[in-house]
């Protein structure tokens, strides 16, 4: 128990150090000017608009006036608004405090999740290295990724312990954090159905178990649907968060193959970078499925494929490299490295991490 506690403390220290890398790097590159406000780039502005002014009544943003903040789900802005009420901080500082605080919680939950799967030492090594995974920058800036991944791994942890109602509660919160959260139902199905059959076989009370399952599945989307109802009342369109994507250049209905071919036909550095990210996401999902985590694999791959259906791959690197399957693959494989490769990899990652911070604060488009 004492050793466990020590590992938790060590992990927390490593996690804090990794976040300090972000803030120190940003501060040094910015020369203190506009710090920490330059950490708010791209979609951060949309979240701030929700925190400060609520959801838009009509599309208005961009020169064409055809975008609105509806695709940005409400849980993250609500929590930041609550922090703003409690503490004398502005929106950006509240969001930074929240995300970096919850990152520490996430690291502990991640460790607790992978610990039974790969063993204590490997879990520690893998999670410690993950703190410096360059894409974790998105867990420290005012985006909803930090909250999303924390809830996701918490839900997975509960699922593994067969605490389904707690898992569903986390899933409900997930579904109002990011639009991909609603696909958690895939993992729920994949884990609950074998459990259901086992329970039925043991207890032979089919009706009660099936009813319980029906309750879980029917309760899961309620919060998501509440957001849809809110949009319906506000805008007249319950699916406004999908439909508004057209304003962002995402037109639903393209075939994924057609999208990939067109990206190869009109190659640009950014789109090729996104394609590589996509393939990493797909391959890691296949690896996850091969390792009998079918629900997790499908859950990771579905948002990537759906993005391809819109013909626009902007943000693919973030979706892919912070997908469940890539995180698990990273921790599983990185933890197996020898000390030499582990240290060398860590050195490289910290360098890329620093570069990412520089790219981010300067608003480079491939960091979207």
């Amino acid at each position: 128990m004492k050793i466990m506690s020590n590992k938790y403390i060590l992990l927390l220290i490593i996690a804090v150090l990794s976040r300090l890398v972000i803030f120190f790097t940003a501060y040094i590159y910015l020369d203190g000017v506009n710090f920490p406000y330059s950490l708010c780039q791209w979609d951060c502005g949309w979240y701030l608009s929700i925190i400060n002014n609520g959801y838009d009544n009509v599309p208005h943003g961009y020169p064409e006036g055809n975008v609105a903040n509806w695709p940005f789900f409400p849980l993250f802005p609500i929590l930041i608004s609550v922090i703003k009420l409690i503490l004398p901080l502005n929106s950006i500082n509240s969001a930074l405090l929240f995300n970096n605080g919850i990152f520490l919680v996430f690291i502990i939950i991640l460790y607790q999740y992978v610990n039974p799967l790969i063993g204590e030492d490997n879990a520690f090594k893998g999670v410690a290295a993950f703190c410096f995974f360059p894409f974790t920058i998105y867990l420290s800036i005012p985006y909803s990724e930090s909250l999303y991944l924390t809830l996701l791994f918490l839900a997975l942890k509960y699922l593994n312990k067969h605490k389904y109602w707690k898992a569903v509660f986390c899933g409900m919160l997930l579904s109002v954090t990011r639009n991909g959260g609603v696909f958690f139902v895939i993992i729920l199905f994949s884990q609950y159905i074998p459990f259901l059959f086992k329970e039925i076989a043991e207890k032979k009370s089919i009706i009660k178990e099936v009813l319980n399952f029906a309750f879980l599945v029917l309760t899961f989307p309620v919060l998501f649907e509440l957001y849809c109802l809110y949009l319906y009342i506000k805008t007249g369109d319950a699916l406004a968060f999908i439909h508004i994507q057209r304003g962002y250049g995402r037109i639903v209905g393209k075939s994924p193959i057609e999208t990939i071919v067109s990206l190869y036909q009109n190659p640009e550095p950014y789109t090729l970078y996104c394609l590589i990210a996509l393939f990493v996401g797909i391959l890691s999902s296949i690896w996850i499925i091969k390792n009998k985590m079918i629900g997790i694999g499908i859950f990771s791959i579905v948002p990537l494929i759906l993005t391809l259906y819109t013909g626009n791959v902007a943000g693919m690197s973030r979706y892919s490299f912070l997908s469940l399957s890539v995180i698990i693959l990273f921790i599983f494989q990185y933890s197996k490295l020898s000390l030499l490769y582990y240290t060398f990899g860590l050195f490289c990652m910290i360098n890329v991490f620093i570069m990412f911070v520089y790219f981010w604060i300067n608003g480079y488009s491939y960091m979207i």
Partner: protein
Amino acid sequence: MNYNLKYYYALFLLLFWHLYILLCYASPSVSDMYYQYYINGSIQKWNRGVGSKYLFGDLIDFRKGGNSSLYVLGGFSGQEKKGTWTCSEYIYIYLRPNTETKYDINLYMSAVPFLNEKHQNQYIEVIVNEVIVKKINYTLGEIGQNIQVIRVNNDIINSNKGNIVVKIRAKGLVSPWELGLSDDTRKLGVYVESIMLKEVEK
């Protein structure tokens, strides 16, 4: 027994809730322009949800360099020397007059249908603010059909919160390629040269 009943009631409530949300998904209560742009995808420009400012009597010119792109939100091909082809079943023109009119409107449309020996008829409907104001059946060889003057009641003109939406619905479109005439695969309706709305005293 009671416990089971509560279970079923709760299940029923949940099902009812989901059904209600499904109905909300299926029946958006939005403006025509929102529907056409965001949901249906049949118009290509959002234009901030309103038509471009228009003074009655101004000519909407569809010839190369003309001002039609200000008002056209979808369904047209690119401007050509003498006009612009409609190339989908529906075309959309959104106008926002400065003031409500107390007069009826004459809609002048100068357009040539895509007709030839292999495609001798073209049926179109001119729709203003969701009311069909004219049905035209163009026929090959018929004279005097290229300039249409369509009277529109001022109730129709003023019925759309200050916007005038002119739709032209063309049925049974074919492309020159389908008829074996050229490589052009656009399904052509009418070749519009100009449209004008002018107030007419009662």
